[in-house]
């Protein structure tokens, strides 16, 4: 196996279909750089090399080094690294293995299982472990305290910025072991309805993604998987600007597309670009102004 690390893909034809997935992964690393002063330039350098040179794109050692660098980043940041950081490690390792064995099926299996498991564990937290998700408290909380949702809340729930700031002050007040009644803030009904809707949508889409991706087999399920994943990315990343995670999910989704599935690949690329627009154009703030 060691000698395979230094071979470029031995079967170029079988890899043409996944080249797009690999390129989108490297683009993700370029658009959302990660790591400290030592890791970041190395990751960026490998990403650029892979994008401009197809031999490097399919070189197993490149992906293995990326996986090691990204794992080192998680270790150095412990316990602060977010979920995206871990998924990058697993995905780069999967790509390294697929390139090493020149077997596209390895990448397809890993993409499907990784996506399914991500949402399965998200479901474990949302449905079972977290005590404040199912009752919509989480979304009420996050819509108030996280400034990234400000524009969205103003536009959709028609909540004034002043009201939001007052609610934020109420939620972020420092209380150790006290529970006093004075100063109870009234949460606007529209904000509560928005939180309930967001909760229901996320419970549904997380469960649907987990089930469809972990369920073995193909046929019509393939289209359902693509549709659900694209819908999730279009809706979620319009509101929560965690673009790196979205781009990574899309790159993994592209890896699941057969060579004949041009339209699905085009859809994934379109949503990849859409998320870039979400990041660069503050649509919610513009609409609320």
């Amino acid at each position, binding site marked *: 196996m060691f000698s395979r690390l230094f071979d470029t893909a031995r079967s170029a034809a079988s890899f043409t279909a996944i080249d797009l997935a690999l390129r989108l992964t490297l683009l993700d690393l370029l658009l959302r750089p990660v790591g400290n002063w030592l890791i970041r330039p190395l990751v960026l350098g490998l990403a650029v090399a892979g994008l401009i040179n197809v031999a490097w794109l399919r070189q197993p050692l490149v992906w293995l080094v990326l996986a090691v660098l990204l794992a080192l980043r998680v270790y150095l940041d412990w316990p602060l690294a977010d*979920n995206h950081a871990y998924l990058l490690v697993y995905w780069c390792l999967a790509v390294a293995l697929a390139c090493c064995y020149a077997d596209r099926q390895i990448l397809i299996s890993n993409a499907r299982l990784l996506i399914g498991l991500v949402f399965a564990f998200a479901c474990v937290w949302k449905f079972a472990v977290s005590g404040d998700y199912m009752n919509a408290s989480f979304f009420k909380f996050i819509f108030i305290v996280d400034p990234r949702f400000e524009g969205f809340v103003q536009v959709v729930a028609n909540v004034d910025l002043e009201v939001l700031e007052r609610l934020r002050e109420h939620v972020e007040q420092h209380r150790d072991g006290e529970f006093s009644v004075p100063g109870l803030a009234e949460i606007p009904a529209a904000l509560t309805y928005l939180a309930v809707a967001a909760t229901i949508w996320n419970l549904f889409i997380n469960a649907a993604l987990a089930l469809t991706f972990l369920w073995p087999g193909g046929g019509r399920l393939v289209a359902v998987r693509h549709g659900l994943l694209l819908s999730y990315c279009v809706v979620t990343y319009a509101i929560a600007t965690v673009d790196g995670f979205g781009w990574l999910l899309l790159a993994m989704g592209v890896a699941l597309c057969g060579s004949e599935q041009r339209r699905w690949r085009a859809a994934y690329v379109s949503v990849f670009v859409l998320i870039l627009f979400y990041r660069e154009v503050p649509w919610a703030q513009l609409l609320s102004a």
Partner: protein
Amino acid sequence: MPKRFIILLPPLLLVAVALNQLRLSATESLSPWSGGGFGMFASTDSPGSRHLHVYVHNAGARKEIAFPASLEIQVLRATTLPSRYRLEQLARAVAVAESGSSFSWDEIVVEVWANEYQPDTLMPLAELLREERFVFSSF
């Protein structure tokens, strides 16, 4: 090592890390938002919702110490995963920042608090997640 195991290494790693995150959340109060368990955006218990107090006890008197800005990342790590080891390292760092290599405190106490929110009004109530006491004879 069989090929079948090697090619499934990424999802196996994901499962192992995520299960470990669930374990650490239950046993060491690791924040749901950290640790690779995909609990982000599932709980109000984010690292930003937690806070920390450091007190020194000396001859029956208690005084809170403010931690310097240089320890901000260390404080964030300690609130995200408030293990005894991390809190001890933080206590040492705060003590040194406050008094250099010599001090005469009986005890340093580190408290980590997490907020819970009343469902209808989001009134916050901080609950003590972890309290550790340290006696440092010297550095």
